[in-house]
């Protein structure tokens, strides 16, 4: 999911499940799976129970990892002279700063035809990959938008030519 304000672009992964929904889903699966396993255990076939528990632990872990994606953010702030990229979760956030007039937006296609492209902002040998959690269409849209906002090393960003247009949300 992608949202752009005048000078701030925020990239966040799409999460169609709320935490409450995830907990409800997990408890629902646990209730059914453990009911089945407990009936077998009650009949004396207890080895079903640890396997059910193990599996539910993996499911819980998978849901947790996936839900934590929702905390991930990439915030690209474009100032008059520099571009700041902040990415990570609330606990772990990394910050990289580039000079606006040297920064380049680079969208490179992958070696393998079935892989996704890679979008990065970079300058002076440093680069920072962004938009990893986006679909290809969104990545292309983001690249297009960032090129408008940042421009290449040898060009004036479009935003300086037409300031008002950048106010529109990209998506």
């Amino acid at each position, binding site marked *: *999911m992608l949202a752009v304000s005048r000078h701030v672009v925020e990239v966040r*992964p*799409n*999460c*169609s*499940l709320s935490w409450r*929904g*995830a907990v409800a889903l997990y408890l629902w*699966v646990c209730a*059914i*799976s453990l009911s*089945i*396993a407990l009936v077998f255990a009650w*009949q004396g*076939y207890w*080895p*079903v*129970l640890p*396997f059910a528990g*193990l*599996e539910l632990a*993996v*499911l819980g872990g*998978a*849901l947790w*990892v*996936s*839900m934590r*994606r929702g905390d*991930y953010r990439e915030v690209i702030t474009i100032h008059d002279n520099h571009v700041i990229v902040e*990415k*990570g979760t609330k606990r772990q956030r*990394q910050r*990289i700063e580039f000079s606006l007039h040297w920064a380049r937006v680079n969208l*490179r*296609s*992958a*070696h*393998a*035809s*079935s*892989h*996704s*492209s*890679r979008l*990065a902002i*970079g300058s002076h*040998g*440093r*680069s*920072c*990959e962004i938009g*990893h*959690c986006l*679909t*290809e*269409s*969104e990545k*292309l849209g983001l690249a297009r938008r960032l090129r408008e906002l940042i421009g290449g090393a040898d060009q004036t960003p479009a935003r300086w030519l037409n300031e008002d247009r950048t106010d529109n949300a990209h*998506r």
Partner: protein
Amino acid sequence: MSHTAEAHHDDHHDAPTGIKRWLFATNHKDIGTMYLVFSLVLFFIGGAMAMVIRAELFQPGLQFVDPGFFNQMTTMHALMMIFGAVMPAFVGLANWMVPLMVGAPDMALPRMNNWSFWILPVAFSLLLSTLFMPGGSPAGGWTMYPPLVMQTGDAFPFLIFSVHLMGMSSIMGAINIVVTIMNMRAPGMSLLKMPLFVWTWLITAYLLILAMPVLAGAVTMLLTDEYFGTSFFNAGGGGDPLMFQHVFWFFGHPEVYIMILPAFGIVSQIIPTFARKPLFGYDSMVYATASIAFLSFIVWAHHMFTVGMPLAGQLFFMFSTMLIAVPTGVKVFNWMTTMWKGSMTFETPMLFAFGFLFLFTIGGFSGLMLGITPADFQYHDTYFVVAHFHYVLVPGAVFAIMAGVYFWLPKWTGHMYNEKLGKLHFWLSAIFVNVTFFPQHFVGLAGMPRRIPDYATQFADFNMISSIGAFVFGASQLLFVYIVWSCVRGGEKATQQVWEGAEGLEWTVPSPAPHHTFEVAPEVK
């Protein structure tokens, strides 16, 4: 999702190439491709075992193999086809298509996805290695009933361990699919806007999550009975061998639907495309799928009517089995109504889907016959059962997989396959699958037992016909390999939409889906 913050050299983060690309694959398309190739290889290995079986049954008497090896072949054929061919093929299709269909960049847990695939070659290498062990490979049937399975030689622990590994792979795949569908759908894609293939896979994944621990527990109890002195199923120690059948089929019947629900999903994508009409009764299809899934947990004992159940039990399981015909009928009628007055064309995917519809229904009807308790007393363990489940699994599940491959192949490769050869493949398959399995109804009704290498001469003619059908059906699958291979190598360029009537997010990306490129942001209608 990447947490990589900074790279001083861009190339450092590029995807690996060569063998590493596949070994460390996390891309859903690469993993989907690996699943599909793996399942094709196992399809041919399991098919070769079927050829051994049919060669031996070509005429009465023992010709080529001894009875012990024959039993190994029937057991291994089933294990290869169920766990190695059909299930991985559906997982492969899910890997390729589910993220594209829900507008997600990849599966929710790409590394676990890699692991769940790479467990499979290990599991099947272990299982196949048992062919060379003292005592040979498992020969007690894929159902692993004790005490017969306890007579397996050195292969026994390998069988149990490989089944555990297959189960682990399935569970991890299922969890990944559940999390992907629940948490990574594009904005606007509510549950009741998801393509039917996604819905059927979501329900299948829940079935896997609920059923697999039961299988794992069952085979573990076999192991502890054999090596650790327990007596779960050992009558000599106070256990009950019959309970294994209950435990096994509590897993086993949902497993049947695990192998057919995704097929329903594929057919539900294909028929509207080539009928150029929206799917009739979308909501009822979803509810029918969920109903079938629920019912699959309360019908297990119809596999064991002859063990001596109380009358109440027989009646319950008979009527609950009959109930499955209702939601299945809803599906069949919805597919037919979708085609009604449609602007139909019959390209290869539609031919396979149509073949599925017609022939799967035959398998469904013979299933209804088997669900009638008094009739089942006659049919049980005869070739009628073999005919029934092969009609469900070959022109059912396998035809749906082939339909799906032809349907999505242009999207995967960017090339159209050879339509003439595709149609030839369909007609050869459709004709000879019937030549193979239809006569088995007759020999079954006449009393020929299953899992035997020799038989009374009265069954000779139909067995010969069946074997000829099997040989030609098997050989015609080589044509499938050639068609797929030549399509991967080149051919007419496929358009973005590929099929005139195709709808859905997956058809809004170019063909091949190189960078899953959406020209515009995914829009869910």
